[in-house]
């Protein structure tokens, strides 16, 4: 058996080590295009779990690596003249060059052949070929991997500095062109990595597209002089880049297998690239051992094991990249909330998990929310909207009534629950005259009533052709319903393709001023209802020709300017065949954008099943109020009769 590994980065070298340890009879050669001491980037970060895996896989290198580590447990967030500290995060980092030296040395010790300065032009002739040749992998050409490369996040540039940070530092700097941010962390006793990032429009406005390497280094040095404490930035072919998100449908083809960045990348802002690469090597070596070098079986094992972790990490990385892309919209948040929002950006840290790592930080957040030194978590903090006080953030109960007979969805619609009521005034529009929801949704009644909408297109299959609405009558019906309403919050339903929602979308309304009638209703209801007034809005139509999220945010802003106090964030259902994206908390990111970009309070649901989600969402400023969907669980139930009898007998 002979193995050729193309690419002498951490993944390739580490795999070489593990394969030689597995079987000294196997010839392993690593081919690297660069010189042994050439390296790009400065330091790489690890988490504690990676270290455990490295110790189990090869104790010798683990010892060497951890000996030279920079370790710390603090994240520092420098924002608007404050520095927020969060502890308990256990990071470690090493100079990439030092890591490669250690791995190369161990390779030599184990008899791996290392060849540098070798360009691989064709598929090496070996029993097993490994593509560990990075994001721009050449070996991917030799198989059908289904590779996709998409840029994600903002523009970024990678520097080193001789200022040694004592924490993983996120620094934010406002300029006349927009907001810049830096990610900095130490990697040995002399040096730190320093990455500068900004959204593409900011980068252009600042003229960075026209600066050369040295000029742009000087720009960043000056911008972050405070953070660098007068120290320098160092360049190593440091150019502004777009981060490529790479995915592959499969990671093997014949006897060729890919790993690390060649197989998948994860945005640098969650610092997981090297961890994923080394974990790949460990998984692949273990699969080859288990399958006794049956390559096909081992490759399938390797992919099945790694895929879920990689996908989860890539999803989190994409969330993080998108967060830094829209960072400017969070600059209005108080520093403590800004910090909590940053820490929870990728969904991997929640209020509860942060509370375990760093109870002081969550206590400070809770205190800021509750206004007392010791306060309950954010979802339990009170909230006030137009003079109405809510005891907590999740006590609202939805209730829906049709404003008229014509506006009912079905004959059974509308039962009023108890609790603090959010009363929704709704006109079903072309989604009216249907069978009860217990049977299905949008199933037309055989003996229904005429339905109305701005255009003559039916909602779904077999739906009736809508007639023209009598707008004055509809308006009067909303006003009359509002006048007689008894609720904590009154809500006008402009979501999900019901009558007013169908006015808002280009998919269902051909007129140019699509806000005309919905705004008329909003203003008329506002005139007769003094309490908090909400609008339920599909922020996006989830359809390429419908309203985008940006359109939805603009609509929310218009409503807020015209008397709406709260946007109830929904998505889709404007048409029946939209392209929804369902998952737990699928509306949270939309609520975040509406709240922070349109600057209007929001209410959000979207299958939130835990109080922790509510605390995280409210704490991070992604919504003001939430609708929980708590599952019914049977934690405590009476014993069956026979058991209770038995107990009785024992006692007797």
């Amino acid at each position, binding site marked *: 058996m002979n193995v050729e590994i193309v690419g002498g980065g951490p993944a390739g070298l580490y795999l070489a080590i593990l394969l030689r340890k597995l079987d000294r009879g196997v010839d392993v050669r690593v081919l690297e295009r660069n010189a042994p001491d050439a390296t790009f980037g400065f330091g790489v970060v690890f988490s504690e779990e990676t270290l455990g895996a490295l110790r189990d896989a090869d104790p010798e290198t683990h010892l060497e690596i951890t000996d030279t580590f920079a370790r710390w447990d603090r994240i520092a967030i420098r924002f608007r003249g404050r520095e927020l500290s969060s502890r308990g995060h256990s990071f470690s980092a090493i100079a990439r060059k030092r890591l490669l030296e250690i791995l190369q040395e161990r390779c030599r010790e184990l008899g791996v052949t290392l060849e540098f300065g070798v360009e691989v032009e064709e598929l090496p002739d070996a029993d097993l070929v490994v593509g560990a040749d990075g994001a721009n992998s050449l070996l991917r050409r030799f198989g*059908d991997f289904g590779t996709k490369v998409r840029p994600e996040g903002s523009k970024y540039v990678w520097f080193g500095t001789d200022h040694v940070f004592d924490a993983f530092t996120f620094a934010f700097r406002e300029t006349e062109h927009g907001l810049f941010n830096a990610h900095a962390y130490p990697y040995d006793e002399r040096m730190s990595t320093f990455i500068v990032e900004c959204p593409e429009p900011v980068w252009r406005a600042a003229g960075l597209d026209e600066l050369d390497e040295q000029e742009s280094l000087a720009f960043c040095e000056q911008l972050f002089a405070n953070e660098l404490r007068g120290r320098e930035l160092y360049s190593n072919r440091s150019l502004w880049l777009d981060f490529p998100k790479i995915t592959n*449908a*499969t990671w*093997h*083809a014949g006897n060729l297998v890919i790993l690390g960045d060649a197989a998948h990348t994860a945005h640098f802002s969650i610092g997981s690239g090297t961890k994923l690469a080394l974990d790949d090597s460990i998984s692949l070596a273990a699969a080859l051992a288990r399958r006794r070098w049956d390559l*096909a*079986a081992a490759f*399938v*094992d390797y*992919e*099945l094991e790694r895929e*879920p972790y990689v996908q989860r990490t890539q999803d989190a990385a994409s969330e993080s990249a998108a967060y830094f892309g829209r960072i400017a919209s969070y600059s209005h948040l108080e520093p403590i909330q800004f910090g909590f929002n940053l820490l929870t950006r990728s969904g991997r840290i929640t209020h509860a998990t942060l509370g375990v790592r760093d109870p002081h930080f969550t206590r400070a957040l809770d205190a800021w929310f509750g206004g007392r030194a010791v306060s309950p978590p954010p979802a339990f903090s009170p909230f006030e909207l137009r003079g109405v006080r809510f005891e907590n953030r999740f006590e609202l109960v939805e209730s829906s009534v049709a404003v008229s007979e014509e506006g009912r969805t079905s004959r059974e619609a509308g039962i009023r629950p108890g609790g603090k009521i959010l009363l929704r005034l709704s006109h079903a529009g072309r989604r009216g005259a249907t*069978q009860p*929801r*217990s*049977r*299905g*949704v*949008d*199933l*037309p009644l*055989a003996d229904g009533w005429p339905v109305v909408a701005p255009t003559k297109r039916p909602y*779904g*299959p*077999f739906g009736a052709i809508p007639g023209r609405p009598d707008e004055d009558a509809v308006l009067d019906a909303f006003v009359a319903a509002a006048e007689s309403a008894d609720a904590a919050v009154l809500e006008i339903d402009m979501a999900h393709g019901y009558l007013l929602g169908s006015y808002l979308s280009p998919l269902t309304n051909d007129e140019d001023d699509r806000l005309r009638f919905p705004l008329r209703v909003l203003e008329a209801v506002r005139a007769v209802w003094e309490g908090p007034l909400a609008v339920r809005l599909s922020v996006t139509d*989830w359809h390429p020709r419908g309203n985008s999220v940006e359109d939805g945010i603009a609509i929310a802003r218009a409503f807020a300017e015209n008397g709406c106090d709260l946007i109830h964030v929904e998505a*889709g*259902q404007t048409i*029946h*065949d*939209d*392209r*929804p*994206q*369902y*998952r*737990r908390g*699928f509306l949270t990111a939309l609520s975040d954008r509406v709240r922070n970009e349109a600057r209007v309070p929001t209410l959000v*649901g*979207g*299958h939130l099943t835990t109080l922790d989600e509510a605390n995280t969402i409210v704490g991070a400023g992604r919504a003001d109020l939430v609708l929980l*969907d708590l599952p019914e669980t049977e934690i405590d139930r009476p014993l069956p009769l026979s058991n209770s009898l038995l107990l009785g007998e024992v006692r007797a």
Partner: protein
Amino acid sequence: MPGASGDLVLEWARRADAGPFSSVGVLERVVYDSYDPFAALAAAAAATSRVRLATMIAIGPLRSTALLAKQAASVHALSGGRLTLGLAVGARTDDFDAAGVEHKGRGKRLGEQLAYIRGNVDGDSVGPSRDGIEILVGGLSGQAYSRMARYADGYAHNGGPPRAFANAAGRALAAWGDLGRPGQPKLWGQGYFAFGDPDRGGDYLLDYYAFTGPFAEKIAAGNLTSARAVKDYVRGYEEAGCDELVLFPTVAEIDELERLQEALA
């Protein structure tokens, strides 16, 4: 599957009905040596009296809407109301070509079929009655979940490790809530097993799923080939909230059913 005689299929259904099982399931592929799902379930209806009869899944858009409704309603009536009709859009173009049906627009047609079957829009002119047919929808796209929540009683998952099922179940529940349906959707899962001759079972899956390219290897690797693997799978699905789990044999032998029953005892 190839090699499954009519006698074997009927004997399988008969024993399942006598044993501890609650449903028998069929799947669908046109361009393959396999039975039509509704014909197989009609035969099973005659050989059984208790178990539910499920398509997991049938490819709805291969048939005209009225004929699909007629077939489903017939099996439902012939079985005394035991049909669970799982429908999805299907994944293979060759099935559509062979049936002479456009592959494009299959999602839209499935939506119409579901509205027709569930909504009684024909006023029951195409009998027998479809009342009480339990409808499931399968598929992993956002549209599949919304069709499920809009028209069906539950979700039919396409198999894989329990965490994949749990992920899909979360999406199904989110869609169900978003469409404002009361209660919860029924969650159906599936898996493959082979006790006697795992290699033969693996070869069958590689062949059956060859159209998915490299994904076939992963499906074959997921074949449950020991009592322990079956038990772990069942436990994992239970924890993920699965209401009904359909285990498909990959070796056409009646012994496989006995061994499955032993593994689950």
